[in-house]
């Protein structure tokens, strides 16, 4: 490690403002601080600082995403072999999915980080670690069959319009990963919905007779309740869907990691689930069609609900920031997701839209929570003034 450190110290001057590679200062800094925690010390205020930094935080989120990612890779292969009727081993399925998903991940990271580095350099900032998570979230919420060029433009759109125009990570209003998906959803609807997109198809694949490839949400929306997969299959994730969001079990493992480490807000996760269940039970009460009749808790296993509740709604930048606000925000995310899901025929999945909508309203929720604190303080002052 000393040799590496020495080498870095040797080339570092070239990246200083007067050096010949000063244009790549942010890039150098990003790689240097990735390899070595900087030697910067405290000067004012606290002399000691908590060991946590944004790199550690983001690493934990990526760790939490791994089960969903690995399962998703396997499931891409599994669904493919279901479709073609071939019998494949676990590893064959995984290898197929791995080769299908890896390019999407590489494109997402490549495009996103490229833009992030460029903007950081232009602003003279350090590169923010936020995209390390977004770059993995984007592939996991896309269908396996998505063309790579779409991944590239969606990522570019999300990073530039969703984040950099607001000033970079921490300043954005909308969750960048969801924005990428929403962009594709509205720009290329034929590639993002329907029965055909969810399963990876290679040239020359034969589809066995009677295979539909429809997701549980699509079945439910079409009121084909007899075609719904079993609860066990939905919980384990042996169903078609976006790459990382089919297995509720894998997401649950991620949720446990996020909650134990305290990186994800358990308040948002719980309140989103409560919101979803509330809506589900209300539908049950006033059910007029088969979709409204399905047990409320089944909704938690279908589509992107679990993934959205655990990894999307909890994004600290775009969620409500006050603790009381988080309860309200999460509840509404869950409630609206089901509302869109069940009552809007155009959008089989409501989670994406409901989170993006609540992203827009989170500052308003916070405003009222903070305003309550302000008026409490004002009232206290007025009471004293009267005496």
């Amino acid at each position, binding site marked *: 490690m000393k040799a590496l450190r020495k080498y870095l110290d040797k080339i570092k001057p070239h990246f200083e403002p007067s050096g010949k590679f000063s244009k790549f200062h942010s890039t150098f800094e990003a790689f240097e601080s990735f390899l070595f925690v900087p030697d910067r010390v405290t000067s004012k205020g606290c002399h000691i600082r908590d060991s946590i930094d944004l790199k550690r935080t983001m690493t934990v989120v990526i760790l939490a995403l791994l089960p969903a990612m690995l399962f998703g890779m396997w499931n891409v292969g599994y669904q493919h072999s279901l479709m073609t009727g071939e019998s494949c081993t676990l590893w064959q399925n995984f290898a197929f999915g791995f080769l299908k998903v890896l390019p999407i991940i590489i494109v997402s990271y490549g495009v996103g980080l490229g833009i992030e580095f460029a903007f950081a350099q232009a602003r003279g900032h350090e590169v923010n670690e936020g995209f390390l998570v977004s770059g993995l979230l984007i592939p996991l919420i896309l269908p396996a069959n998505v063309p790579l060029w779409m991944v590239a433009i969606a990522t570019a759109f999300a990073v530039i319009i969703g984040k950099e125009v607001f000033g970079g990570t921490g300043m954005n209003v909308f969750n960048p990963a969801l924005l990428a998906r929403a962009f594709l959803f509205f720009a290329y609807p034929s590639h993002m919905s329907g029965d055909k997109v969810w399963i990876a198809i290679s040239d020359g694949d034969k589809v066995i007779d009677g295979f539909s490839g429809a997701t549980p949400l699509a079945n439910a929306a079409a009121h084909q309740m007899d075609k719904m997969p079993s609860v066990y299959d939905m919980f384990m994730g042996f169903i078609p869907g976006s790459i990382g969001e089919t297995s509720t079990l894998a997401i649950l493992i991620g949720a446990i990691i996020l909650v134990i480490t305290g990186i994800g807000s358990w308040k948002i996760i719980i309140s989103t689930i409560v919101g979803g269940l509330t809506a589900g039970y209300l539908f049950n009460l006033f059910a007029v069609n088969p979709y409204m009749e399905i047990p409320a808790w089944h909704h938690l296993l279908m589509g992107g609900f679990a993934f959205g509740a655990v990894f999307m709604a909890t994004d600290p930048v775009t969620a409500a920031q006050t603790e009381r606000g988080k309860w309200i925000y999460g509840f509404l995310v869950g409630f609206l997701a089901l509302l869109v899901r069940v009552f809007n025929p155009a959008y089989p999945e409501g989670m994406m839209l409901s989170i993006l909508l609540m992203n827009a309203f989170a500052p308003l929720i916070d405003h009222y929570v903070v305003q309550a604190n302000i008026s409490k303080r004002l009232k206290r002052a007025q009471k004293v*003034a009267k005496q």
Partner: protein
Amino acid sequence: MSNVIKIKKGLNIPLVGQPEKVLIRADMAETYAVKPTDFPGLIPKLNVQVGDMVKAGSPLFHDKSNPSIVFGSPVSGEVIEIRRGDRRVILEVVIKATAEIDYEQGEPCNPSSLPREQIIERMLNAGLWPIVRQRPYNIIANPTDTPKAIYISCFDTAPLAPDVDFLVNGEAEAFQTGITALSKLTTGKVHLGLNADYPASAVFAKAKDVEMHYFTGPHPAGNVGVHIHHTNPINKGETIWVINPTDVIILGRLFAKGIYDATKVIALAGSEIKKPRYSKVISGARIDSIVNGNMVQSEIEPRYISGNVLTGTKVSHIGFLGFYDNMVTVIPEGNHHEFLGWAAPGLNKHSASRTFLSKLIPGKQFKLDTNLNGGERAYVLSGQYEKVLPMSIYPVHLIKAILANDIDKMEQLGIYEVVEEDLALCEYVCTSKIEVQEILRKGIDSMIKELS
């Protein structure tokens, strides 16, 4: 012990180097100093020049905007240096002490027989008025104000903090005299904040003319600002005065003996100290007199701090003890690179979050250095600050209001109720490494400017 206020939010940072309750006699320091930088917002005007001889209690400088507030010399001797910084700002007025301290002798008297004006006048004349600070803002109190109460915190919960009971041991008489004088200064009462976890020292428990409040919980439960917030919160236009218990004793001596005797007990703590203990010193002592011969042999450069690790001031090896400080902490500097440090399992790393394995070892004491442990970023995480601030205040919103220089918002969000030490833990836990205390002081400075 009737009503104990339970503080739930906060954080104790267990560090190596807790001082042992042994009082050692430190040598008299070669030089002493009063540092105008200890008093935020102060613009000093000198009363002395280099070469002047002073007595203990003689004025060294005064406040430009309020000339009645003078700063007395803690010792007698010769003014040997007036150290200045950028733009000739006065940093230190250094006195070479005589072996025997020669005091400016005043008339001893019983403060209970004196009217308010005379008590204030005596304190001002003796040069020890600056021991009284006001909230909001944590600046030297304006002697023409009448505070609604006076608060004294009688315990300290900061990392490695001294046991205040030990600091005041045997000074019951002087403490009571000081309290009697203070009780004349307010229309309200003198309030003592005590730790509910153990019986208070007799010095505090037997104090008269006071109202006692009991607190229990993690740091910052010992902060006087937290005590005020939970018992008598400050509204716009109100002031409360605060004073350290050790300074109450110095005040008591002024009335009992007629002299400014700035002797106090301080703690020497931190992982770089061989035997962390207490010693008796005079305010403003050069710290080498305390730390020399008691340092752990190490290749790592030490960081000397006057005060505690969260709010103290960085000083050099031959720097001086701060005016309000009751401890000197020495920890290792963190000016080294760590390979993939952010990915380490972190058995030796302390964090308020639960992302390091050290959370699994209960009772572990940490040896922390001054590394920032990361780079500065925009706010990304939420809810971190709230976990360590036991006040009904939204700290991130307050900090953002300050950054936007929105005076109205700062006022509405409760800037009158907090000072740097209250938000110090927020700065400690901040993932984005934001300089919370510095930002808060800027906000306070603009409030003072705006409202004056």
